[in-house]
C-alpha cells in the first residue's frame, strides 16, 4: 500500500514555476530515489512534503491522510547534519521526543536502545564536534527516525562524505532500513548512488521541474559489491542519462 503519495504538486516562486504537476509514490519498505540536477526543485519538493511550504496546487498524503501544509508529520535529513553543537548526541537524537513534550529522562531512555542499532555505541555523552562526518550523519538519521518511525525523507544525506565512507554508509543504511522497516524517499544528483540503492528512481528535470521518467531497478537486494561494474548497471545508467 502507498505509504506516502504526492499528487499533482505544482509550485512557483514569484510567478516563476519551479515544480510542475509532480506525482510521486512511496510504498511500504521501499527506497525511492528522486534523481535530478542541483537546483531542479528537489529540495522545494521536500519542503512541500514536510509541510514547510504550501504547494500552489496538489496534495501530500501520508497513509491516505492529507498532510499538505502541515508540519510535524514527516521529518527530513539534509546533507548538513544540523546536529545542535551544544547538545550531546543523546540529547540531539532525543530532540524530536523533547519537542513532543516528553520529559528529558524518559526521552533518553527511549533513545538509548537505538544507539547500537545505528552503530553509535559509546557516543551518547559526546558532542557533535567530537564525531566524524559518517558518525554525525548516523546520529542525524537516528534523530530523523526518532521523529517519524516509518518514513524518512533524505536530501542528499551522504553527498558530503568521501567515496569510501559513502559506500559503507549505503550498505549500512540499507541494512538498518530493513531492520527498522523504514520507507525512504531519497534525493540525490548522483546517478551511481541512485542505481545502487534504489528500488525505483524518479527522474526530475527541466525548468519547471517535471517527472520525466520512472525506472525500476530489478536487481535484488542486497546488491553485490561489484554491481556497479556490470552491464545491467551501465544499461540503467544509459537509460537515465537519456531521460534526464
Amino acid at each position, binding site marked *: 500500500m502507498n505509504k506516502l503519495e504526492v499528487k499533482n504538486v505544482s509550485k512557483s516562486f514569484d510567478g516563476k514555476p519551479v515544480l510542475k504537476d509532480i506525482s510521486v509514490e512511496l510504498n511500504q519498505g521501499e527506497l525511492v530515489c528522486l534523481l535530478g540536477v542541483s537546483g531542479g526543485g528537489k529540495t522545494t519538493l521536500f519542503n512541500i512534503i514536510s509541510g514547510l511550504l504550501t504547494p500552489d496546487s496538489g496534495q501530500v498524503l501520508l497513509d491516505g491522510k492529507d498532510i499538505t501544509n502541515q508540519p510535524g508529520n514527516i521529518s527530513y535529513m539534509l546533507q548538513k547534519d544540523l546536529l*545542535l553543537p551544544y547538545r550531546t548526541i543523546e540529547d540531539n537524537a532525543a530532540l524530536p521526543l523533547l519537542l513532543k513534550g516528553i520529559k528529558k529522562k524518559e526521552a533518553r531512555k527511549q533513545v538509548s536502545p537505538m544507539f547500537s542499532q545505528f552503530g553509535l555505541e559509546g557516543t551518547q555523552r559526546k558532542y557533535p564536534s567530537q564525531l566524524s562526518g559518517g558518525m554525525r550523519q548516523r546520529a542525524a538519521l537516528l534523530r530523523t527516525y526518532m521523529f517519524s518511525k516509518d518514513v524518512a525523507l533524505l536530501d542528499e544525506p551522504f553527498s558530503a562524505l568521501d567515496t569510501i565512507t559513502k559506500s559503507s554508509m549505503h550498505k549500512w543504511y540499507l541494512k538498518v532500513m530493513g531492520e527498522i522497516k523504514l520507507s525512504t524517499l531519497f534525493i540525490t544528483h548522483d546517478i551511481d548512488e541512485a542505481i545502487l540503492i534504489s528500488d525505483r528512481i524518479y527522474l526530475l528535470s527541466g525548468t519547471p521541474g517535471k517527472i520525466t521518467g520512472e525506472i525500476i531497478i530489478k536487481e535484488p537486494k542486497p546488491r553485490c559489491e561489484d554491481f556497479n561494474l556490470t552491464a545491467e548497471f551501465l544499461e540503467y545508467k544509459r537509460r537515465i542519462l537519456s531521460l534526464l
Partner: protein
Amino acid sequence: MLPSPIEVMQAFVSEFPLLLENSVITLQEAFIGLFLGVSVGFAVAVLMDTFGLLYKAFYPLLIITQTIPSVAIAPLLVLWFGYEMTPKIVLIVISTFFPVTVGLLDGFRSADKDAIGLLRSMGANRIKVFRYIKFPSALPQLFSGLRIAAAYSVVGAVISEWLGGFGGLGVYMTRVKKAFAFDKMFAVIFLISAISLALMALVGFAEKKCMPYRNLNKKGEKL
C-alpha cells in the same frame, strides 16, 4: 604629585576599612544595576527579534542612547531621582543593557536557518525554536556582551557616585581628590580596576560552565 607604589600600598592598607565600607555600597549598586540592565537588555532583544517592526523602529534609538555621555546625564538623574541609590542604578541600566541587547540580537540572527526549518518540520512552535536553537546559539555573543556590561556596571556606579551621593567609592574619590591625597586616589583606582577584573572573571567562569561543549577535541579533552 605622583605617589610611589609603596605609598599607594601603605594608603591602601591604612584606608582599608573605609575602602571596604565604600566598596560594599558601590558593589551593591553595580550588582542591582547589572541585574536589571541585563534583564532589560534580554527583554528588549527578545522583543526586537520577535517583532521585526520593533527592530526597525527602535534600533536607531537604541544606538542614540549610547551616544549620550553618561557624565552628562548623571547630574540630571540626580535631580530627578535624588541622591540615593536610584539614579545610580538607572545610569548603570542605561549603560549595561546595550551590549547585552546588541550581543543577543546578533546571536539570534546567527542561528542556523536550516536548523530552525528542521525543528519546524518536527512541529516546534516559536517558543521551542527559541529555547532549542535561538537562545543557545546566542550564548557566545551573550557572554561577550555580559563581560562588557560587567565592566560598565562598576564604572557607571563610580561615575554616578562622583556626581552626587552619600557613599561609595566614587564619593570617596571626590573626597581624597579635594584633600590632594594622591596616594589614596591611586589606591582606590587600583581597587576599582581589581573589582572590574574580578567581575569579568566571574562572567568568564559562568561562560565555561554554561558552554562545556566549546573547545573540545575528538577525545573529549579540553583544548
